[in-house]
């Protein structure tokens, strides 16, 4: 089925575009809008957005693939985003990732079969002072270690962490 923006989305998009001197400047805010609506930015959505903003498709795709905060596929209930940049890396992010991989049985970019967890390694989350950091959906969990991570996973499995 071809992708179509809702009238509501189009109206919102026009409002957002009007905030900028150039129409194509609204690319990132609109990608956020799309992700808010569907949980991810669909391939066909990129085509439609490019058309809406008068941009080449490749430009939209380049931006979506550059930023790790845009999901290109539906994600699980909890999207675990482990920072892999230098401060977190030195503070043990690699170990956290390995632990998550083995505990959840998935690699980065994959979702568990029960649809509960999606694991991602992301770029700097801007919280180097409390490295290593993991963002779960919109929330930060800082100064993590193996024990904290295990406890957090348990809480999430039992629905004790708010989405």
């Amino acid at each position, binding site marked *: 089925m071809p992708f179509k923006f809702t009238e509501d989305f189009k109206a919102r998009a026009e409002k957002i575009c009007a905030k900028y001197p150039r129409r194509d400047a609204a690319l990132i805010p609109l990608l956020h809008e799309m992700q808010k609506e569907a949980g991810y930015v669909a391939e066909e959505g990129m085509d439609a957005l490019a058309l809406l903003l008068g941009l080449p498709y490749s430009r939209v795709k380049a931006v979506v*693939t550059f930023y790790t905060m845009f999901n290109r596929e539906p994600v699980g209930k909890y999207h675990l985003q482990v920072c892999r940049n230098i401060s977190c890396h030195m503070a043990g992010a690699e170990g956290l990732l390995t632990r998550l991989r083995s505990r959840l049985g998935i690699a980065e970019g994959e979702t568990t079969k029960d649809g509960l967890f999606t694991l991602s390694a992301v770029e700097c989350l801007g919280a180097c002072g409390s490295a290593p950091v993991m963002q779960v959906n919109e929330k930060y969990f800082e100064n993590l270690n193996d024990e904290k991570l295990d406890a957090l996973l348990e809480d999430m499995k039992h629905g004790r962490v708010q989405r």
Partner: protein
Amino acid sequence: MPTLTIDGKPVEVEKGTSILEAAQKLGVYIPRYCYHPKLSVSGNCRMCLVEVEKAPKLLTACSTEAAEGMVVRTVSDKVKAARRDVLEYLLINHPLDCPICDQAGECGLQNYYMDYSLAKSRFKNEDKVRRQKRRALGPHLVLDNERCILCTRCVRFCAEVTKTAELEVMGRGDHSHIDMKEGKALDNGYSLNIADICPVGAWTSRDFRFKQRVWFLKKTPTICLGCATGCLIEAHHNENTIYRTVPLPNPETNTWLCDHGRLAYKAVQGGDRLVKGVIKNGLIDFEPALREVAARIDEARGAGAVAVLGSPWLSIEDNAALARLAKDALKTENYCFDFASEQGIKDGILINKDPSPNANGLRLVKDAHGGISQAELSSRIAAGQIKVVLAEARAAGLIKDALKAAGTRLIVFAANKGEIPAATYATLPYASYFETPGTFVNYQGLRRRTTPPAEAPEGVKPLWAVVNKLAAYSGSSLRLDSAEDALKGIDLK
């Protein structure tokens, strides 16, 4: 007009000139990957770093504007160290598959490594980032992302020259790679230029891949005859085989070359090439074919029923020879060198509205030798006054319906079988302009001569020589011993 000093030499440049261009003016070469004179400045490869007095860090020569009193050093120890380091970075993930890479021999990485680095890598071979290799993108190109150094010349070419913007750098950091829309082909009519401007082996031409090592190739500058634009090109050839043609950038006509023009050389040595005569549909040797043609011309000649048609696809020399044949040997006034042509760049880049390369040259022949108008020729054909028409194949194609309707016998000169119009009575082969010199006048009025990179197949002669023989069969001599002889009497201005 700022004056600056580069390596101790003062140079005055226009305001807005970059250090790299200023250095070029002095003949000082600064290495570069991402800089291209006809594309926007990106400044991402860092290969052109130079030392500028009073600047705290090295500056990229391609993106720094030359300023009054600037003192630039391009070969200091600091600059040398920077180049070595940039190359080390670029080569961290390079697959080093030079033995199987078509770019080897004309590769920016190889050349600069020899010139500026010669250092051993400190990174382990097995830690290299692997990416997709040998991915055919479109009908003309193969992309190898492992070899790519992300200079974005291809991205900028598609965005700025063809304005199709198919390509982009996708992903980020270590994951960055050149990509385009899944399932789409990279085919914008100019795509092979990407293989030219790619400074490494990431983009290679599907046509040229694995055909020849570049160091075996000899280079001959000549012109493209794909349309009236008449781009300057360089034919790369070895042992009488042309392997590719590339643009020869010049300020007058072209920086790039369209895919159609670039692959036009293939017709010359493909299976479609005509190397023998054709009578009706049967191939026969050149000499008997020529005798047959001469006999048919002789039959009609007495009644004044032979017509000769010039062609905008032929050189001035060959057209002039045809005019002389009609005027001096056949002694007929039924010859026409009159072609209407609408010229001008069609797509805003290079492709001309006029698909024939020499309409302007043909006009010079007409000025020198006269002849009847095309309308007049058509009416004489329609009136049944013409029994035999002698013409070049593509020009004959334009009037073939009129000839068929009038039952006129058509004799053509063709270099390729595909050009021969249906219901042609006889065809004679001639040497293409990759095999014989010819003068052409492009849409701008620039007169240019082809330089043949190859020799014609055995027994195939230039068209003026065939015409010379035909004249001899008709009992008169045109005394054409060279292409230059045919040019006599034509005012080339």
